């Protein structure tokens, strides 16, 4: 069964889901490369966890409007709004405390609020909340064709945008002062990068889930950095690793009942990292 899925013989839908997950993995790998070079990796974790209350609120809003609450674009919109609020909160708090403390505080508070909301929703008996918790760890089993297309094209769009912006993004990460003198606005570039990472998080909600998306952003990037001496090289290798992990993770998860997709993808990425360490790991890194 696993071999069938890996070779795209598990049916049209399963193949589409695997390809979609591969494109998501590529976008996460590429975005993660720029994110880690800019030293903002944990910011993406706070952002991802901050999507949860938005998903709960969007569900409630859609049920109130007469739906079953499971319309994916609606859930993504809610997720985007609270993720943006979380990001804003981190930046606002970072004026009073260190950024890592602000990140931790926001991550935990928003996630806690989200869990409370989801628990309330389960007991509400309204709409169709069963399976809403797959946004935590991801599940590609039984994914619809439309969802797979959203994931695939979303991932592709983010990858293209990163390719187009790679020069200014690299300049800001390496030397923000010089970038500014060259007419590149570091604030705008940071905002663009965060928006692209947010897109990865939203698209990845159903695949890796919000808890583990940070691993798909960071792990391929740190592996890739040991294979390349340039920014474009790092981002490309990272995208390749992410794509492979997304593809195989989705295929394996789809063929083993009840195995969430996120952990499988993340374990594959960790495997690549360990392999990289064994081959390329020297004291000077």
């Amino acid at each position, binding site marked *: 069964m696993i071999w069938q899925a890996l070779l795209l013989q598990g049916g049209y839908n399963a193949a589409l889901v695997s390809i979609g997950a591969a494109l998501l993995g590529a976008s996460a790998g590429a975005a993660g490369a720029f994110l880690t070079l800019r030293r903002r990796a944990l910011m993406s974790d706070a952002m991802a966890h901050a999507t949860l209350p938005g998903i709960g609120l969007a569900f409630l809003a859609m049920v109130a409007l007469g739906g079953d609450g499971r319309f994916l674009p609606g859930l993504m919109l809610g997720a985007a709004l609270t993720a943006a609020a979380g990001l804003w909160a981190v930046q606002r708090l970072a004026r009073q405390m260190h950024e890592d403390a602000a990140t931790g505080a926001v991550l935990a508070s928003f996630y806690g609020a989200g869990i409370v909301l989801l628990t309330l929703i389960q007991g509400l008996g309204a709409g169709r909340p069963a399976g809403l918790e797959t946004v935590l760890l991801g599940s590609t089993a039984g994914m619809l064709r439309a969802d797979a297309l959203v994931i695939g094209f979303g991932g592709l769009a983010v990858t293209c945008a990163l390719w187009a912006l790679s020069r200014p993004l690299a300049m800001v990460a390496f030397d923000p*002062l*010089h970038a500014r003198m*060259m*007419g590149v606005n570091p604030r705008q570039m940071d905002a663009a990068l965060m928006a692209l990472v947010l897109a990865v998080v939203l698209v990845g909600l159903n695949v890796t889930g919000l808890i583990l998306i940070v691993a798909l952003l960071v792990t391929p990037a740190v592996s890739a950095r040991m294979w390349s*001496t340039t920014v474009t090289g790092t981002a490309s290798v990272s995208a390749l690793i992410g794509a492979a992990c997304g593809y195989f993770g989705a295929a394996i998860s789809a063929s083993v009942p009840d195995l969430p997709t996120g952990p499988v993808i993340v374990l594959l990425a960790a495997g690549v990292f360990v392999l990289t360490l064994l081959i390329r790991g020297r004291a000077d890194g």
Partner: protein
Amino acid sequence: MQAGAEAALQVQGLTLRYNDVLALDGASATFPSGSMTAIIGPNGAGKSTFLKSVLGLVEAEGQVSAFGGPVAKVMARIAYVPQRAAVDWSFPVRVIDVVLMGCYRKTGLLGRIDRRMTAHAMAALARVGMQDFARRQIGALSGGQQQRVFLARALAQGADLILLDEPFAGVDAATEAAIIGVLKSLRDGGATIIAVHHDLSTVAAYFDRVLLLNRRTVAEGAVAETFTRTALAQAYGPALILDPAA
């Protein structure tokens, strides 16, 4: 200064407050075109802050004009070489990539690089004697070589006002001589050089002008007239005695 020569950089009453600390207190200075000036002064005198304020990288009060106009208008003509400590040397970037960053304004849409631009960057590297290191990772170079790469980035940019923050920190004597050679040839070609400098013993040999700074301007002018025992005592003396942190 020749009469009628346009000042490359003119600074009037530059003041900057960090919370309650006055980092700069109405510092003023004029840097004539084609001059090479050392900014000297005790630790905490605001030397690096002076450079960053001039460039608008930190928000300070006061008037700054470069080539007779606002600095923002002539950014393309100004280059800044940061302190070594301010750079992440493990960053995955090769020497040629760093120099190409200086060409960003000249490259087309979204900064795509063509063969002509690479040749331009290689020429800049050759001027600082680093052409053989183009494909090395920036962290694999010695301190002096890294400094020369940043100088090449300034050259590739085509800047004729170059600001350097302690270019000789952590650099061996031979490289220091090589860097100063490049800077002097740039000055002789009409460029204006301004460097934060620490080693008082080399001021007279390297520079033709001095700005003595201690939050405000203590003295400025040609080395022969300005770099005097009295002025130095004025700049360094009180700080040494009254420094509350000591």
